[in-house]
């Protein structure tokens, strides 16, 4: 049986996909940067373990994250009273957990690539602690944007977590990946391919924008070799 899907429904799916993945990447960015700053500026026992955990978190399986969030939000779970299960908010929470370690890990690595003496020079030119942090953020811009790109790419393409905590409810929590899954299962390959193309186009467009921002003012390699 071939089920029909209207244009309005497709637009709604795209809108929700962008909303959920965009917002979760953005929130994860603002939660990850302070953590990366903290890890950069402070030495304490257990710091290495935290960094190792973050690096591991960069490859968290979405289904595992979906499971953990589901356990919390489930009707009888500790946060069951909030009634968030199968809502876009639950999907955003799951995707923040997926995106956070990617941005935190890549940003921290980018900070550590900046010469500490350059920051010391910033201080010696009169920078306050806050301005030092801002200077560091600016110097490490390339790596931070790489983090955003990687995180957004990961969450917009994952299906496990959004399916588990969102439930793929038509008109409510259905996003592009879960829709593709659904249509493929139903044998609507034609529609599945169209949705897949839309997903890739969105991914490409957003990455193009982010990359343009990232590469701004970047000097080209301009040394001629013999060959």
């Amino acid at each position, binding site marked *: 049986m071939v089920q029909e899907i209207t244009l309005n429904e497709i637009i709604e799916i795209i809108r929700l996909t962008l909303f959920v993945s965009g917002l979760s990447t953005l929130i994860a960015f603002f939660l990850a940067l302070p953590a990366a700053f903290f890890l950069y500026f402070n030495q304490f026992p257990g710091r290495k373990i935290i960094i190792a955990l973050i690096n591991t978190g960069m490859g968290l399986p979405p289904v595992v994250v979906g499971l953990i969030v589901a356990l919390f939000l489930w009707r009888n779970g500790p946060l069951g009273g909030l009634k968030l299960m199968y809502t876009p908010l639950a999907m955003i929470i799951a995707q923040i957990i997926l995106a956070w370690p990617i941005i935190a890990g890549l940003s921290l690595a980018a900070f550590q690539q900046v*010469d500490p003496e*350059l920051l010391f*020079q910033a201080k010696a030119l009169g920078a306050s602690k806050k301005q030092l942090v801002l200077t560091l953020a600016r*110097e490490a811009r390339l790596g931070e944007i790489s983090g955003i790109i990687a995180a957004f790419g990961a969450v917009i393409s994952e299906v496990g977590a959004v399916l588990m905590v969102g439930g793929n409810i038509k008109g409510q929590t259905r996003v592009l990946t879960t829709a593709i899954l659904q249509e493929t299962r139903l044998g609507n390959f034609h529609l599945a391919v169209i949705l897949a193309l839309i997903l890739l186009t969105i991914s490409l467009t957003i990455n193009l924008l982010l990359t343009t921002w990232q590469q701004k003012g970047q000097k080209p390699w301009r040394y001629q070799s013999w060959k």
Partner: protein
Amino acid sequence: MAISELEIRNLIHYYQGKRILNIPFFNVNRGECLVILGPNGAGKSTLLRIASLLEKPCQGEILFQGIKVTTRNELAFRRRMVYLLDKFLFFRGKVKDNLLYGLKIRGVSQKEQLKRLEQMSELFALQPFLESYPHELSAGEQQKVNLARALIIEPDLLFLDEPFSNLEPKFKEEIMVEFSATRKKRSQTTIIVTHNREEAFYLATRLAILIDGEIKQTGKTEEILDFPSCLEVASFIGQETLVEGVVVGQENGMLKVFVANNYIYAFGSAKVGEPVRVIFRPEEVILSTEKPSTSIRNWFWGQVVEIKTLDKVIVISLDCGFLLKAYLTKPAVEELKIERGKKFWAGVKASSLSALTLRDGELKNRAN
């Protein structure tokens, strides 16, 4: 009485359990160029970082313009100073952005920023580079940008850590001369740390000798050279003779400098008519009873006025119209029968002499 911009009292600083600084008193006067000279590892950079409020001393207090520095006023005071590291480290962005960094973080108005940018780029001839990236510039140009981004802030105190040590000799002289002239014109209070004696003698209006974390002597360059307070100071600073004269011509690629009825041949880039300072190193001066016909161009006839034993060498001071010091070994002194009052020929190779340009009233300043 000069106004004290900065005063350090009872400073003791430890690093990894070792006492590296012990300075009961140290001050910087307004308008002076104080050079802290000392061997590597004497604690110079640490002292500079503490004085510029970038590092907190383990013990002791710091007074900025008479007010004690505390955690509360530290940032406000720190912002009236600038410290430049011993290497050029630039931020992302163009030369222009780097020059404006210090003003931006101080919240200086856009209009004032542009005014000072214009002023600075004119002073250091940086207009062609403003839109370039720092890494596209030569080391000499980078050091100019580095100095300009500090001076643009118009700090009450400027701290420089080995500012000219990493430059090629040909840039070094030019930039040093230019910086010194600018510093004087703006009466910029400056504290420079260096291990290079010639740099120190050229730049300093006052010299402080730091050895093993202690300030062994402070004073005018001539005072310290003529009357080193102890053997440590004497053997570290050497017994250089500084002579001032005027370039009168050029011969075989060397400058001919007129000094006290003598002509000195030395290397340098000064032009005819310009005042210069020539530095003689005592270990490069040889003595002879008669003027030999060797390739040495510089011979001076002078009378021995002092013979002093210093470590393993004997320091002979000759009056050749100017005071010239020579290091000799004991056998050489005996062989030449050197005594007070006797006259000798003193020779110095032109290749071991360099003449540095003096600018803008420096001669007068030094006469005071």
